[in-house]
């Protein structure tokens, strides 16, 4: 059963790679979707490079969001930072209530066109799920375990790094996974302000009424999201199967 689903994963991944590197092989499949003279395969840049840039944008934004959100969660779960808990919660919530388009519109006059406003939108968007999950992970640790850690003579720092973070890790990873999937989809909007992402393909398709472009841009993003979601979920399972009683 496990090997069967691994086989499915591998085939999807291979299919995606082949499509990105040799899209022309798939031209006959997409041809029926376009008018006679229009190109069926995106021809204004390499799909492979757009995918790499798309992933890079999501990666940078997620890493930054993870660092900030987890640090914030650690801070407000310490004795010294407890009073900042409500403030940090509402700050992060505000980040989530802003529609990404609005963030882009506001960021463009400040940072100009290109990748920067997209990164900022994705970063703000990614914060909340990671922060919420890190907070849940760090505040729902078994009391007996924490009592034992204190009683054994661990310093606060040792408790954090040896006990709290390792035990909260599966829950934090769930937050990161949610954040990555949201960002993968949201990043496409970045192309409206000239960021190099797969959104470019979709937007080009919408502008020239080319259904094949829209479809291939959308499909690549969807398959990426499914594969990454799946991989992170596998990682969480591997971690929590060990850590849970």
């Amino acid at each position: 059963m496990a090997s069967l689903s691994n086989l499915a994963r591998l085939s999807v991944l291979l299919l995606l790679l082949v499509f990105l590197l040799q899209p022309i092989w798939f031209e006959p499949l997409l041809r029926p979707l376009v008018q006679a003279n229009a190109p069926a395969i995106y021809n204004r840049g390499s799909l492979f490079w757009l995918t790499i840039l798309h992933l890079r944008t999501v990666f940078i934004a997620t890493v930054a969001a993870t660092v900030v959100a987890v640090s914030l969660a650690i801070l407000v779960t310490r004795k010294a930072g407890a009073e900042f808990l409500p403030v940090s919660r509402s700050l992060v919530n505000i980040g989530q209530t802003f529609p990404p388009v609005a963030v882009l519109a506001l960021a463009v006059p400040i940072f100009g066109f290109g990748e920067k406003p997209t990164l900022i939108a994705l970063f703000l968007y990614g914060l909340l799920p990671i922060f919420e999950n890190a907070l849940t992970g760090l505040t729902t640790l078994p009391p007996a375990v924490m009592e034992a850690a204190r009683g054994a003579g661990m310093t606060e720092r040792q408790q954090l790094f040896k006990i709290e973070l390792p035990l909260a890790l599966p829950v934090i990873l769930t937050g990161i996974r949610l954040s990555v999937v949201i960002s993968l989809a949201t990043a496409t909007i970045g192309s409206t302000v000239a960021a190099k992402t797969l959104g470019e393909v979709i937007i080009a398709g919408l502008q020239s009424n080319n259904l094949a472009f829209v479809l291939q841009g959308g499909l690549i993003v969807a398959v990426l999201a499914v594969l990454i979601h799946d991989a992170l979920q596998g990682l969480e399972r591997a971690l929590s199967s060990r850590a849970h009683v």
Partner: protein
Amino acid sequence: MIEFDHITKRYDDTEVVSDVSLTVEPHTVTVVVGTSGSGKTTLLRMVNRLVEPTSGMIRIDGEDNRSVPEFELRRRIGYAIQGHGLFPHRTVAENIATVPTLLGWENARIKAKVEQLLTLFQLDPDFFGARYPHELSGGQQQRVGVARALAAEPNLLLMDEPFGALDPIIRAKAQDDLLAIQKHFGTTIILVTHDMEEAFRLADKIAVMDKGEVLQYATPAEMLVRPATPFVEALIGSSERPFRLLAIETAGDAVEPGGAEGEPIPATLSQRDALSELLWSGRAALPVAAADGAVIGKVSLAGLVKRAARPE
């Protein structure tokens, strides 16, 4: 030696522990008994400073327990709790090695200690060392919890209802193991429980607490004979008194000269169990055998009945 010197703990307006003074002798087992909310756990947690007293002082071997940083103090004191609190993401061996690792012991020494303790607790080191806590039974987890508390060879071991989550048969075994290990290492143990049976089974001295105060601090025999207050008497349970008294001493202590018919009972058996044997076998007396099997005399129903009576 642990000295509680006028220890008081107040949370806002409620006094949880009121002016407790008592001295725990080294290499003994002291059991603190009380109902829930009596302040017994708070008293225990003040020894390793998981709780700080509002006033008063606790001295360990003459030294104020606030004279070293908290984490250093705690590494020198074993601590075992109800529900064991094992670290779920670490193997049994890593759990036991917790304090030695914090103290920076060499790997070889840690490994040897872990193996010694696992063997002592009848857990095969090769099999159990690499397991995770959730793969163990409740009784095994509890033993690992106590092994972890003993890993850095502390002179003092604090135990907060360590056997509370175990079923009666495993609990009795765990109590016997604890006494054997206490003899082996000579550790001073302070144990908190609400179970009077457990207190009489383990204690050299018992402290009974109620509403933050120590009502009586005495040996089990003294407490049976002269309970300080009606509360202590009620806690002991008046119908249990003669049997508790018999449970303190062994059949060897009650030997009378002469012989008797029947299967000899070992001299190490408690007088309570000896009485039980007599009643069950329907005999008035049974021979008593020493460890080498030689019969050293008899115990009689009449003799035990006399011993179970309230001493004057």
